[in-house]
C-alpha cells in the first residue's frame, strides 16, 4: 500500500513538476482574489443605491452567477468562445470565469456587510458634512468588512480550491501537474502528494476560519 500511494522514488521525481504547478495555483489565486474583491465591492456599493431599477438587475446578475456552476462557466468560455472566433487560453478563461463567479459571491457578502452597519453611522457621518463616497470609504466599509470577515476569508479559501478546476482546461496548476505525473507513472502517489500540498497550504486558514465562525455564530445566539 505504501509503495502504491507513497512511492518515494516517484514522489521525488514528481516533486519539481508539482512545485511548478503550485506556483501557478498561487499565481491564479493572487490574480483572481483581488479581481473578485474589486468586482464584489463595485456590486455591493451599487446595491446600496435605493433605486429599484438598479437593484433588481444587480440582484439578478448576482443570483445568476451564484447559481451557475463555475466549471460549466469555465467550459462554456473555453469550448464555446472559439466558435465565436475568440481563442483564449486556459489561464485567461479561468480568470474570467472566476472573476464573474467570485465577484458575485464577494458582492453578496459585502452587501450583507454594508447592510449590517447601523443607519445611525451614515447619519452621523453625513451630519458632519462627509459626502456619500467619503462616508462609505471611511465609516461604513471599515465596519462592514470587519463584520463579514469570516465570510470573506471563507470565500477566499474556496477560490484557492477552485483553481484546481483549471486542470480541466489544461492550465498547468497543481492538480493538472499531479494528474500528468500520475498518468505518466501509472502510480497515484503524485495525487497524494498534491493533496498533501493543498492540505498544508490551506489548513492554517481553515483552522483560523473555524475559530472566527464559531465566534460569529455565538455572537448571534
Amino acid at each position, binding site marked *: 500500500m505504501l509503495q502504491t500511494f507513497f512511492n518515494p522514488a516517484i514522489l521525488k521525481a514528481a516533486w519539481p513538476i508539482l512545485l511548478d504547478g503550485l506556483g501557478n495555483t498561487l499565481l491564479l489565486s493572487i490574480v483572481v482574489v483581488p479581481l473578485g474583491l474589486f468586482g464584489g465591492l463595485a456590486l455591493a456599493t451599487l446595491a446600496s443605491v435605493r433605486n429599484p431599477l438598479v437593484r433588481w438587475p444587480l440582484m439578478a446578475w448576482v443570483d445568476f452567477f451564484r447559481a451557475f456552476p463555475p466549471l460549466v462557466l469555465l467550459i462554456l468560455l473555453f469550448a464555446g468562445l472559439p466558435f465565436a472566433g475568440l481563442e483564449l487560453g486556459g489561464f485567461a478563461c479561468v480568470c474570467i470565469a472566476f472573476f464573474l463567479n467570485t465577484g458575485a459571491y464577494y458582492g453578496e457578502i459585502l452587501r450583507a456587510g454594508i447592510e449590517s452597519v*447601523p443607519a*445611525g453611522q451614515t447619519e*452621523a457621518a453625513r*451630519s*458632519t*458634512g462627509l459626502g456619500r463616497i*467619503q462616508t462609505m470609504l471611511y465609516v461604513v466599509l471599515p465596519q462592514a468588512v470587519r463584520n463579514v470577515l469570516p465570510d470573506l476569508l471563507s470565500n477566499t479559501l474556496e477560490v484557492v480550491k477552485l483553481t484546481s478546476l483549471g486542470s480541466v482546461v489544461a492550465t498547468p496548476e497543481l492538480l493538472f501537474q499531479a494528474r500528468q505525473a500520475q498518468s505518466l507513472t501509472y502510480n497515484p502517489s503524485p495525487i497524494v502528494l498534491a493533496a498533501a500540498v493543498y492540505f498544508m497550504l490551506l489548513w492554517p486558514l481553515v483552522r483560523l476560519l473555524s475559530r472566527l465562525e464559531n465566534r460569529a455564530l455565538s455572537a448571534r445566539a
Partner: protein
Amino acid sequence: MPGKPIVEARGVHKYFGALHVLKGVDLVLAERELAFVIGPSGSGKSTLLRCLNRLEEPSSGSIVVDGVDMLDPRTDLNHARQRIGMVFQSFNLYPHMTALGNVTLALRKVAGRSRDEADAVGRTALARVGLADRADYTPGQLSGGQQQRVAIARAIALEPRVMLFDEPTSALDPELVGSVLGVMRDLRESGMAMVVVSHEMGFARNAADRVIFMDAGAVVEEGAPAQIFEAPRQQRTRAFIGQIQRH
C-alpha cells in the same frame, strides 16, 4: 441676550407616505438662543430637527440656516452641514476609531485640515467636554455619558453656528445624564445657539430661553419656560405638563 435669527424654518410639511407628520411648522431661532422642544412621542419633534440639516427631506416649506437655503439644490449640502452640529440619541460614534479619530474625521476630509491641525482642534474640543485624557480610547472603552460627550466634541470641533440635540440623554443611565447636561450648559453659556429635543424638564427650566410644545405635527404653544411650565395657555399643553410632572 438672543441676537438675529440663525435658523428660520417656515411652513415645514413632512409626509411619510400618507402620514402627515409635520403640518406647517415654523421655527425661528436667534443667535445665542436655546430653544427646548417638548411633546409626546409621535409629535414630530425629532423629524423637525432632522429636517433642519436635511437628514429628512421636508415635503414643502423653507429652511434657512445661517443665511444658507438648505433646500436649494444648488447649495453645497456637505459644507452647509458643517455649520450645523448634531448630537444623536444613540451617539453614533464610529466604533473603529478612537475618540480623537471620531472628532477629527470630518475636519480632515471635508474641511481639508492637515492631520496635525485637525488633531490640535480635536484635542481642544475633547478638552472642552472634559475628555482630553480619553482621546486615544475607542468608543467601546467609554461609558455612555463619555461617548455622548465625544459625540458633542465631534460636532463642536467643526465650529458650528447652531447645535441640534435629538434626545441626547434618553439612552443614558440616570447617573450619567448629569455629565452630558453639564457640557450642554457650558455650551449654552459660551453663546451657542441650540435646539434641544428632550424630556429633561429640569434642564429646560434652568437653561432654556424658550420652550416649544409640539403635538400631532404642529406647534401648539411656545414661550418662556416659566410660562409654559407654570401657566400654560392651551389645554393640550396643560394636559402634557400635568402628565410629566406627575412622574
